[in-house]
């Protein structure tokens, strides 16, 4: 097989694998910018993955699943905010605690509701976001380079992949071109400045964490109802921590190191230690 096609296919896989990472990394970046470290990305994604799959399979609608995933993730991030912002608790401990609770709660509920040993039934049809073939993909698919790229690489992903692609510019716009973004960046850099400007630091951070929750919700949903077809315990397999590393590097010096790491399909062994919760979950 030609090197060209191999590259295209690798990029194609990269899109699929990168989607949840990109969404989660943006989420992490948002809370990071607001001055709240959130190692709870993992837990939020896992919670969302479960909620989405559970609702999708019961209602038969992937979109309702997405709603549920986002809702679950939002709930978790407001818990994080309640602990870290309202009660100024330790951000790392809070994130950890959330990861652990979710790691335990999802299989428990899953088992109680579906009796499938903590997983949800396999999703099919409308219960799942299936891949979209963009117009003319088949038509021009056999035009050498361009057509091939269009058909293989651009076309044929599920909606959430395209959402993730869109999310990057949108988040950038919100962060750098809107009032909300300005305030978020300010509160991360110097909360006192925001305070003296007569803006409530607390509320602002709640909002920022809500955005984090929203994005994690989409990322988690992708795992169980778009890329995968159903929830399996611990299925985030550490993507949350990988994303965290990426968002750290966002403003840090690691970018060059981290982005490739995050956007390539990594062998699981390199993800191992992101599975904090798996280990914490030891009785």
């Amino acid at each position, binding site marked *: 097989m030609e090197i060209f096609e191999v590259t295209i296919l690798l990029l194609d896989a990269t899109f699929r694998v990168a989607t949840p990472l990109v969404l989660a990394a943006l989420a992490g970046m948002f809370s990071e910018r607001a001055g709240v470290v959130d190692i709870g990305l993992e837990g939020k994604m896992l919670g969302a993955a479960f909620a989405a799959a559970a609702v999708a399979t019961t209602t038969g609608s992937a979109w309702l699943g997405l709603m549920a995933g986002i809702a679950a993730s939002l709930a978790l991030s407001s818990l994080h905010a309640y602990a870290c912002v309202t009660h100024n608790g330790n951000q790392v401990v809070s994130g950890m605690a959330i990861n652990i609770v979710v790691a335990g709660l999802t299989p428990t509920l899953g088992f109680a509701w579906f009796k499938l040993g903590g997983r949800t039934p396999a999703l099919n049809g409308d219960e799942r976001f299936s891949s979209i073939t963009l117009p003319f993909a088949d038509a021009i698919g056999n035009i050498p380079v361009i057509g091939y790229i269009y058909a293989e690489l651009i076309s044929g992903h599920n909606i959430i992949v395209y959402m993730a692609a869109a999310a990057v510019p949108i988040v950038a716009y919100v962060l750098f*071109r*809107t*009032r*909300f*973004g*300005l*305030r978020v*960046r*300010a509160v991360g*850099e*110097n909360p*006192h*400045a*925001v*305070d*003296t*400007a*007569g*803006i*409530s630091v607390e509320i602002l951070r709640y909002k920022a964490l809500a955005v984090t929750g929203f994005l994690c919700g989409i990322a988690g949903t992708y795992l169980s109802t778009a890329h995968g077809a159903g929830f399996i315990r611990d299925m985030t397999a550490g993507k949350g921590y990988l994303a965290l590393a990426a968002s750290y590097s966002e403003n840090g010096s690691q970018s060059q190191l981290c982005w490739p790491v995050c956007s390539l399909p990594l062998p699981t062994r390199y993800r191992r230690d992101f599975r904090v919760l798996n280990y914490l979950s030891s009785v």
Partner: protein
Amino acid sequence: MTTNAPALELRRVNKWFGAVHANRDISLSVGRGTIHGIIGENGAGKSTLMSIVYGFYEADEGEIYVNGALCDIDNPQASIEAGIGMVHQHFMLVDTFTVLENIILGVEGGNRLAGGIEKARIELERLEREYTLEVDVDALVGDLPVGLRQRVEILKALYRGAEILILDEPTGVLTPQEADHLFRILNTLREQGKTVILITHKLREIMAITDHVSVMRRGEMVAHVATKDTDREKLAELMVGRSVLLRVEKEKATPGADLMTIEGLNYIDEDGVARLKNIGLTLRAGEILGIAGVSGNGQSELLEVLGGIISPTSGSIRYKGEELVKNPKFNARDLRKIGLGHVPEDRHKAGLVLSFSANENTALGYHDLPMFNKGATLDRTKMVSACETYIEKFDVRPPDATLKASGFSGGNQQKLVLAREMEQDPDVLLVGQPTRGVDIGAIEFIHKQLIHMRDQGKAILVVSVEIDEVMSLADRIAVMFDGAIVGELDASEATEQRLGLMMAGISDQELHVSDPEGEAVS
């Protein structure tokens, strides 16, 4: 709202911090269109009181009236709405933002920034013209010198439509020129009918610009006077509760041997900017060499190089005949061992570990000396006893060697640092901004100590942006501008104007060029 009501009135305001009664029964009335000064020793309660007015702290008791109307100010928002603006002692700006972004923060006017920014730009141009507050609105605040940052803070307040402007120790960080400019701004504000509350430790400024003065001592208002009916001595006495000597008493210096000779010293920082240019200085035993200059002209780098914190790019530093540059001994730790003390410019950034207790801080830099160790162990009891003697000798308040450094007011923090460096009895002492943010009682004391040290035959280098501090302390004065020494002259022949011009980079030769800003104050 009655038109002749005072712009701001406080009635029986009380504030506790735990056991500390920071403000007790404070009553204050500030007339509209006046500049009202508030003075008091470190820890007297000035910042606390103003923080209450600005809604940072809530008063435990008491009322606040703005233009005669009772206001319930429980957060900055409320205070801003009541038309109050505040310029804080430690600026409240986002360094990574542009001036514009900092100013519109909180009043962006619309969800999208673009629109608001353009509106702000126009409004700001008006304000800048009206109050001569020029500043490049697109510059990054992080890149601005303190003087300009302060203007940004003022613009911020005005942009929010402040009628009452509070400034907490605004000149503590300014050069005379900057200070003069600030006062011209305040005058314009007054003419425009705005009300200004000015907290400062500098009586010169109080006399120069305020209409009324209120004096605080230990949490209480001890006096309200009209500026024209008082003078610096009276005020100082009211503040401290005893008569204070405002001039520095000293005999003519009797310089001895050259202890440190600096020649052709250059330093280029990692960004490739030349910070020090061919510096040549000599420190003599029994003499105080003052370095005057607008802050940011290389004084900080000079101190850091001489202190062994950063190493120069080229040049020579001879100490007691021994070349230090390219010498393994040339690092902060070993320099201390060979008798070089260093009081840094910024006590919070470098001089102290605020989260450490006072006694732990007395060992900072000297923690491996025998006097603080027995064997491998750091000897706590020795540290505490040493600290207690320092506290005793330098009259640090509160006299508690176990209190965290952050628990002392700036003046007392400064005393702790001075004590640590002086009590090691160095032969050469480097001192940066000896009295920044320190009240006159402490200033008097600190100056006495420095003079006393000089008279014991030590060489002292004093770097200060306070032009009159340099003039009253130093025996010789060198002026720095843009990393180089513009000129050096004997204290006796130094006048404020002459130094001011040299600080602007105009060397003696060109002295005939007269400077428009010369006579602004005093």
